[in-house]
C-alpha cells in the first residue's frame, strides 16, 4: 500500500455573477481530462442577466478604481502562475498574459484622453466627446490563454461587462482565470465565463437582445461566423468579426479591441454670461 497522498481534485464549474454554479442543465463533459460544466442556453441567459446587472456599478466606477482592479488581477495571476503552467501552458504565454493585464490596467484612465477630446465647433459652445462603454459584450475567445486574456481585458477595462464562452477544448485555463478574477476585487458579474460548446451557446448570445456587442475572435468556421453576425444584426450589436487567419496574440494589441466596444458621446453646452 502506497503512502502517497490522495489528491483533492478540482471541480470545474461555470462563473456567473461572481459565483461558481454548475450548469442549470446539470450537464458536463470531459475536456483536458477533467469534468467540465456544459453550459446551456439558459446559462447564457443567466450570465447575461448577471452581466447587465453589473454594468451600472462597473461602468460607474472611477477609471482609477478599474485600473487598480485590473492590476490586482495581474498580481493574483502572478501568484497562481504555476497553476496555469501545470495545466500545460507555456510559461512564456502565462507571463505574457500577466503582462497584458498590466498593460490594459494602465489604459483605464488614459483611453478617454486618447480617444476623446474637445471639439472646436464654429460657435459659442462647449463641446466635448468622450468614450463610454457599450454595455454587455459577448465574447467568443480563442483557445489560447493569452488570446482569452487579450479579448477579456480590453472589453472590461473601459467599463463593459462580458459573457465569455470558453473554447470547447481548452476550458481549464478559463475556469482557473475565473478563480483569479473572483479573488481580485472584480465585482461579481463583470466577467462571466461559460464552459461548453460555443457552437451551441454562441447563437443564443449573438441573438440576445440585451447584449450590446460581440467579439468573434475564437470562431474559425466561416459559416458559423456569418450566421452569428446575422443574428447579431437583430439589435445592431457592435461586431468584431472572426479573424481570417489565426492572430498572433503576442503582438502589440493596439487600441482596436478597446475602441470596438466604446461609444462616443458628445456633449454640447452654450457659452454665455
Amino acid at each position, binding site marked *: 500500500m502506497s503512502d502517497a497522498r490522495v489528491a483533492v481534485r478540482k471541480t470545474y464549474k461555470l462563473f456567473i455573477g461572481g459565483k461558481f454554479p454548475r450548469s442549470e442543465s446539470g450537464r458536463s463533459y470531459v475536456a483536458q481530462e477533467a469534468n467540465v460544466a456544459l453550459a446551456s442556453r439558459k446559462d447564457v441567459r443567466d450570465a*447575461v442577466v448577471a452581466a447587465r446587472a453589473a454594468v451600472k456599478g462597473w461602468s460607474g466606477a472611477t477609471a482609477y478604481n478599474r485600473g487598480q482592479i485590473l492590476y490586482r488581477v495581474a498580481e493574483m495571476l502572478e501568484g497562481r502562475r504555476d497553476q496555469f503552467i501545470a495545466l500545460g501552458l507555456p510559461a512564456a504565454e502565462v507571463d505574457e498574459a500577466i503582462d497584458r493585464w498590466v498593460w490594459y490596467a494602465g489604459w483605464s484612465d488614459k483611453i478617454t484622453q486618447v480617444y476623446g477630446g474637445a471639439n472646436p465647433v464654429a460657435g459659442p459652445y462647449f463641446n466635448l466627446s468622450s468614450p463610454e462603454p457599450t454595455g454587455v459584450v459577448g465574447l467568443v475567445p480563442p483557445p489560447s490563454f493569452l488570446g482569452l486574456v487579450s479579448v477579456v481585458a480590453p472589453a472590461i477595462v473601459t467599463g463593459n461587462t462580458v459573457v465569455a464562452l470558453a473554447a470547447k477544448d481548452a476550458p481549464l485555463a478559463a475556469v482557473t482565470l475565473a478563480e483569479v478574477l473572483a479573488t481580485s476585487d472584480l465585482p461579481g458579474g463583470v466577467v462571466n465565463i461559460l464552459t461548453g460548446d460555443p457552437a451551441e451557446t454562441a447563437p443564443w448570445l449573438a441573438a440576445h437582445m440585451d447584449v450590446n456587442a460581440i467579439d468573434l475572435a475564437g470562431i474559425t468556421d466561416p459559416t458559423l461566423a456569418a450566421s452569428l453576425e446575422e443574428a447579431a444584426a*437583430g*439589435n445592431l450589436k457592435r461586431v468584431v468579426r472572426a479573424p481570417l487567419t489565426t492572430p498572433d496574440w503576442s503582438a502589440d494589441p493596439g487600441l482596436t479591441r478597446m475602441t470596438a466596444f466604446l461609444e462616443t458621446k458628445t456633449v454640447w453646452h452654450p457659452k454665455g454670461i
Partner: protein
Amino acid sequence: MLGTRSIKTTAKAWAIDLAIRMVDLTTLEGADTPGKVRALCAKARRPDPADPTCPPVAAICVYPAMVPVAVEALAGSGIHTASVATAFPSGQAPLEVKLADTKAAVAAGADEIDMVINRGAFLSGRYLEVFEEIAAVKQACGTAHLKVILETGELATYDNVRRASWIGMLAGGDFIKTSTGKVPVAATLPVTLVMLEAVRDFRDLTGRQVGVKPAGGIRTTKDAVKYLVLVNETAGDDWLDPDWFRFGASTLLNDLLMQRTKLTTGVYSGPDYFTLD
C-alpha cells in the same frame, strides 16, 4: 416539489398570458403622483405596445388619493381599480378612520379594496376584534370587492396564516392576500400553499369561493409559473382565473413580457424593448 413541474411550451405561453391577466399592477409609494399613476394605467391597458395580442392586466392598485386618476385613466378598459385602505400598510389607526378611508376610496370609484388586518389584535389573540373589523370594512365596501391582506410576514407561523385566512373568509373577504409588500418577508410559495388549502377547504365547507393574491417579491416568470402550478395542484383550475387569483406586483410584468417575446421571436429579449412605467 409542486414548483418543479415542467410544462409544455404551449402551456407556458398560455400561462404567461394568464399571469399577465392576473397582475394587479401596483404603485404604492409616498412619491406617487397623477403622472406616475396615469403612466401605470397606460401600461395596464397595453403592457406591450408593440404587440396588440398581449392582454391587459387585471387591475391597478394604488393609494386612495390616486383612485380618481386611475378610474379616469382606465375608463372603458375593463381593468379594475384597486385601492389599499384601512391605514395601509400598518393598519394602526382607529376603526372609524379605517372605515372612512375605505368609504372614501369606494366613493372615488375603486371597485376593489385591499385592506390590512389588525395584526396587533391578531397576535394578542383578539381574533374577534380582527373578525369584526374585517366585517365592518366589508360593509363599508358596499359592492366593491374586498381583499384581506394578512401580512403573513408578520404572522410568524403557518398555523397563524391558516387561522388568519379563515377569519378573513368568515368575515366576508372576497380575496385573501399575503402581503403589503412593505415588510421584509412578502409572498412565499409555502404561505400561498397554506392559503390555497384554506380557500379550497372553505369552499368545500360553505360553497363560497374566495380568491387568493400573493403580493410582493414575485419578480420572474419562473416564480409566477410556480405559483400557477401550485394553484392548479392545490385549489384546482377553478382558481386559474383573474377573478380568483391575482399577483400583486410591479416588476413581474416586464419579465412576463420578456418571456412572452422570447416565445414568439425565439431570442432572448432585453429591458430596452419594454416600457418602464
